[in-house]
């Protein structure tokens, strides 16, 4: 398929997912009602309030989280040249989870959670990066080892907190947050995360050319003029900002950052200039649709999006990984 056609299809798909997601909710609304509300944002009325205060911000949160996680996964997989890497490799999610679990147990205000999660997540990313440092750059193996080790430690802290909180309501709050959800998220949360998301997205744009060169190996990338050390730090900073922002917005949403880059590579190839926008579009689409299903499937209750994505994600990932030709999805060894 031509790239132009693929790009148009992805834009249409993302718009369609947003439209479907806007239609789903407790109060049935027609397409015309939603269109009118979108066209006249200042009009008073319950429909406008539902669309502008409840559904649209939630759709935007879902799209943002999906796009951020997919971008982050594509950047890290490209930098480490490892198709099994996901956005939470740098310990961002585990540290944020541990910090928020402790904060919930300590009775911290709900409004403080995003800031606590953000600081802890970025702190963990800095710690992992400093442990993985070698010379002026980053050692890929050390990064993975440090990320996995610290994530395990933070996961143990979360388990400890949950055990301590078992007899209280806090345990349910912590578990709900760990499962990932966009319930109750809105413009305020988006506004808080926007600067970090913006910087992360800008760094992703910068990373496209170095990521393309890194496809032929670190040594050759250096030989064609890539400052690999600087590229690694910038990619790590960008992916940490995107991951931390998504954790703050929606808790732990798994599999998007792992699967979407694989899916996008099959559709548009590995050229980062095309792959990164495609990942953002597919990630946003996937999260918007998954969130809509979560709101609908057990209404009036909600299914955590992390749970739904794991149920969809695991078989999808296994299918993609096991049924892709070696030269297309993962890597081909050159000797």
């Amino acid at each position, binding site marked *: 398929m031509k790239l132009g056609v693929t790009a148009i299809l992805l834009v249409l798909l993302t718009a369609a997912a947003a439209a479907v997601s806007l239609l789903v909710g407790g109060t049935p609304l027609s397409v015309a009602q939603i269109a009118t509300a979108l066209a006249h944002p200042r009009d008073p009325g319950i429909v406008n309030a539902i669309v502008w205060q409840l559904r649209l911000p939630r759709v935007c949160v879902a799209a943002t989280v999906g796009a951020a996680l997919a971008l982050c996964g594509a950047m890290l997989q490209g930098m480490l*040249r490892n198709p099994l890497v996901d956005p939470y490799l740098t310990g961002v999610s585990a540290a944020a989870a541990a910090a928020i679990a402790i904060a919930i147990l300590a009775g911290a205000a709900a409004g403080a959670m995003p800031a606590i999660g953000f600081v802890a997540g970025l702190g963990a990313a800095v710690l992992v990066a400093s442990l993985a440092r070698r010379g002026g750059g980053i050692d890929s193996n050390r990064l993975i080892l440090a990320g996995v080790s610290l994530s395990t430690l933070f996961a143990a802290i979360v388990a400890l907190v949950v055990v301590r909180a078992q007899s209280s309501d806090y345990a349910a709050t912590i578990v709900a947050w760990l499962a990932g959800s966009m319930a109750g998220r809105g413009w305020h949360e988006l506004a808080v995360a926007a600067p970090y998301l913006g910087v992360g997205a800008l760094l992703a*744009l*910068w990373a*496209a*050319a170095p990521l*393309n*060169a890194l*496809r*032929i*190996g670190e*040594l*050759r990338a*250096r*030989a*064609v*003029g*890539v*400052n690999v050390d600087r590229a690694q730090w910038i990619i790590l900073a960008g992916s940490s900002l995107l991951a931390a922002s998504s954790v703050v917005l929606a808790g732990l949403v798994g599999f998007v950052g792992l699967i979407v880059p694989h899916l996008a*590579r099959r559709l548009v*190839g*590995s*050229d980062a*200039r095309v792959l990164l926008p495609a990942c953002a579009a597919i990630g946003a689409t996937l999260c918007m649709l998954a969130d809509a299903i979560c709101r609908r499937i057990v209404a009036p209750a909600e299914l955590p999006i992390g749970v739904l994505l794991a149920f969809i994600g695991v078989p999808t990932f296994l299918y993609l990984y096991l049924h892709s030709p*070696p*030269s*297309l*999805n993962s*890597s*081909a*060894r*050159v*000797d």
Partner: protein
Amino acid sequence: MIELHDVALRIGGRRLLDAIDARIARGELVALLGANGAGKTTLLRAIAGLYPLGSGSICLDGSPGAQLGSLERAKRVALVTGDEVLLDALRVRDVVSIGRFPHHRWWQWREQPADENAVDRALAAVRMQDVAERFFSTLSAGERQRVWIALGLAQETPILLLDEPTSHLDVRVAHEILSLLRSLAEGGKSVVCALHDVNEALAYADRIALLGAQTLLAIAPTEAVLAGSLLERAYGIAMEQVRLSDGRLRVFARVPNGSSGGRRSPEPSA
């Protein structure tokens, strides 16, 4: 032009290069010879700016390499290496296009006509235009080597460094590649090529740079390097020189039973 002044390099406390002085002009093909571990690859990478020098300096077309940024350096010197690498699903044209990296700013996402022309020229130079849309992983070893050379050519640098470009290649493909390097040198590039085969160096190079024990034993016209016992010192084995009927010189390792390298034909029976 490449100028090396008293170049020394240590990594992890180990001496890898020491007291290397050389000057390689434009339009010259220099073969870099030496035993395994003598420092050929290290020297090429040092010239390409991939290793910081312990002391001394390397000038690339008159500018000290240490003062050049990574992009400026990559516009002056291209390094072609055959090291193993894992590739995504890349087509030949994608691989060669990466050679245009130093000619772009980070916000220039679209390839310019100049880039496409440079990639076309590079593919044509190695006669790979017809396989430009094939996946790199489906190519033979010789074809892959040509693609790596095309990647270096797409950088459009006055200096081209190659690390064992004829390893694992059959005689015909090796000849094609070395002839290409010869023509690139005649076209005005400074070409330095690490080789294992002394006779390939004798046949195609203008000069030989002979490395031994991490230092430069000689850099001289090909046959001058063969005079005396320099080659034997460098490789640690006795050598035999044979003058062919057309006057060209060839070198073989002398094996203990007195014959030159290779298995002897059985004596015809009476």
